[in-house]
């Protein structure tokens, strides 16, 4: 336990205020979280309280290709519900065909993340983070830089938005603004909470929910031999976590010895981890440990999608770092001087790798992956009366 706290202090000490929304406990009158048993209440920015209307607006925006330069991409293009809001590509491709250096990060339980994306300690709240895919130019993702007026005009023309923006942001001001777009998307993202996997059913008493292999894998996962839980610990299986009543948020970044291209622990540019932002040598190769909930459906793995299967992920950690024999990224990650002390390597008995993978698969929450509340609303009926449309005699009320 003391070791755990020490790690948090050591690795969590680096935080930038950067673009920061002060996270405080925002009372959300009338809003009821639907949380899995035992899950804490997520923190919400004081200036963006949760509301049912805002969630619905945010869901529409999340699935709306009008939020891209040429109308071909939405957030969901790279964040696919069926893959726990990741995609099958190793690294994402933007609206202009530009290849992103990193793998699309999952959004499972993103409400509990005190730091966002793979390795940017300045990215602290979902509202400003949404600006990166929308307006970022290195690389171009949705390609909206300079096009915000056009984008907002597109939204104003949509009947559903005429109702939803007003319902989500009541008041005299024009609710169709960039600030409100980011607030609504962030609010929807905070509802993407997953905690009903076989592991959770077993946790709550149903020992038949997990296979014997998965239970054996659980033992291995939480053992001091494998050390997995040091970086993927807690209810959300990540060391970077925050929630109401947490006190201090914990933020951790780790170098896992995935690369060592120069014998000094170097990672190939531009994916140098926290170093890319802070420019500090000791931050080379430090990335956030993502939640392992639903991990089995999020492959390929790692920040650059460079490992295809969970079995190979286990091999990487068992070896205490990856060895790349040839090519521009050649190097022995095991000997990286920057590697986390918890990546010491381990030996597995026959069947144990399969058990570990079975445990990871038991974290898959099928209900989350198919929950219609998180799905594309544009293919679902729309109850316009619920969102403020006047009842008209003979009108069906939907579209």
């Amino acid at each position: 336990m003391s070791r755990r706290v020490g790690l948090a202090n050591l690795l969590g000490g680096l935080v930038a205020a950067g673009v920061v929304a002060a996270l405080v406990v925002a009372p959300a009158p009338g809003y009821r979280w639907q949380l899995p048993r035992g899950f804490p209440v997520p923190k919400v920015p004081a200036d963006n309280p949760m509301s049912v209307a805002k969630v619905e607006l945010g869901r529409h925006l999340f699935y709306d290709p009008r939020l891209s330069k040429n109308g071909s991409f939405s957030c969901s293009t790279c964040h696919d519900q069926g893959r726990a809001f990741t995609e099958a590509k190793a690294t994402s491709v933007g609206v202009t065909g530009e290849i992103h250096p990193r793998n699309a990060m999952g959004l499972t339980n993103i409400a509990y993340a005190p730091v966002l994306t793979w390795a940017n300690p300045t990215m602290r709240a979902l509202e400003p983070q949404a600006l990166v895919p929308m307006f970022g130019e290195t690389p171009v993702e949705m390609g909206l830089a300079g096009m915000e007026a056009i984008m907002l005009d597109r939204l104003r023309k949509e009947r559903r938005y005429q109702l939803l923006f007003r319902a989500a942001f009541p008041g005299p001001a024009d609710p169709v603004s960039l600030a409100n777009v980011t607030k609504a998307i962030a609010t929807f993202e905070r509802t993407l909470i997953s905690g009903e996997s076989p592991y959770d059913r077993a946790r709550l008493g149903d020992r038949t929910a997990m296979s014997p292999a998965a239970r054996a894998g659980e033992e291995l996962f939480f053992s001091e031999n494998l050390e997995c839980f040091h970086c993927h610990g807690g209810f959300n299986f990540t060391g970077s976590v925050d929630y109401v009543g947490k006190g201090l948020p914990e933020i951790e970044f780790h170098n896992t010895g995935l690369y060592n291209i120069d014998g000094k622990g170097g990672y190939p540019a531009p994916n140098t981890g926290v170093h890319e932002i802070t420019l500090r040598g000791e931050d080379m190769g430090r990335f956030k440990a993502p939640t392992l909930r639903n991990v089995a459906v999020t492959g390929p793995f790692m920040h650059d999608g460079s490992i295809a299967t969970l079995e190979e992920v286990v091999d990487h950690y068992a070896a205490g770092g990856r060895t790349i024999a040839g090519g521009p990224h050649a190097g022995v990650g095991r000997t990286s001087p920057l590697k986390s002390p918890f990546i010491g390597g381990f030996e597995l008995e026959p069947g144990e790798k399969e058990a570990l993978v079975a445990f990871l698969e038991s974290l898959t929450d099928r209900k989350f992956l198919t929950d219609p509340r998180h799905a594309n609303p544009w293919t679902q009926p729309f109850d316009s009366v619920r969102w403020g449309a006047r009842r008209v005699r003979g009108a069906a009320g939907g579209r």
Partner: protein
Amino acid sequence: MIARVLSAAALGAAVTTRLGAAAPPPPAPITIRFAAVVGEQPFACGREYPGIGTAGTTITPLDFRLYVSEVALIDRKGKAVPVRLAEDGVWQRQGVAMLDFEDGTGACSNGSAETRLAIEGTAPAGDYAGVRFTLGIPFALNHRNPVEQGSPFNVTSMFWVWRAGYKFLRLDVKATGPVERLFVHLGSTGCVAADSMPASPAVRCQNPNRSVVTIAGFDPARDTVIADVAALFQGSDLTANQPKTAMGCMSAPDDADCGPLFDRLGLAFGERTSGGQQFFRIGRGGAVGASGGGAR
């Protein structure tokens, strides 16, 4: 002779000070005009400019905007007198002004029709012989949520959200040659805090990359500040780009393409100090003033 001049100057200074103390000069409206050029040619979207950089590359503008702040006039005694910037709700706010040299035509299709070629404000009436400003946004204003701010802090093309700030300068061009597009995006890099509280204000940036520009001999009633694209690129080979870095320079310390550009912006790059900024210069008598449409 020298002594007499000095004592006369000292006497004059004393008189001015005493008079000044009794009745400070009232603030008067002041306009500091800017113009963009490419060498001897006015800057315009849709035009081609040959002979740029060390390889004589032909370039076509895509975008050209920048932020200036901490504007001051230099009086005859060398004293900097701050200019109080007007708050016009569009171009100027909180002592920061955006200048916009592109007009959305030609290849600048991602820009805006409006241009801005001047800073408006007030300063005590006086006899000025120089201007000083910072190319960039002050630290305290550079790291807020941009969509919560008023114009010109809400211009998405100037957002630099991945690096938690703004692009202080954005100069994008198309080029003939192996490197088809070049971007000069100047901003602060290496921004971190030593504190783990999420709302910590104690952020610092390893490389603020704010350039303080002083133009001597500048008479605001007569002269124009010229921003010269050709001068900025003069030490750069626009046919080459360091592999695995941004096309052009996006302020990355490991992108050697930034070296000659930072030198001409008056900024240190790594261990190398600048020989002095050469991007801005004085335009006498407004001779090169007419680039593009109406400023205000």
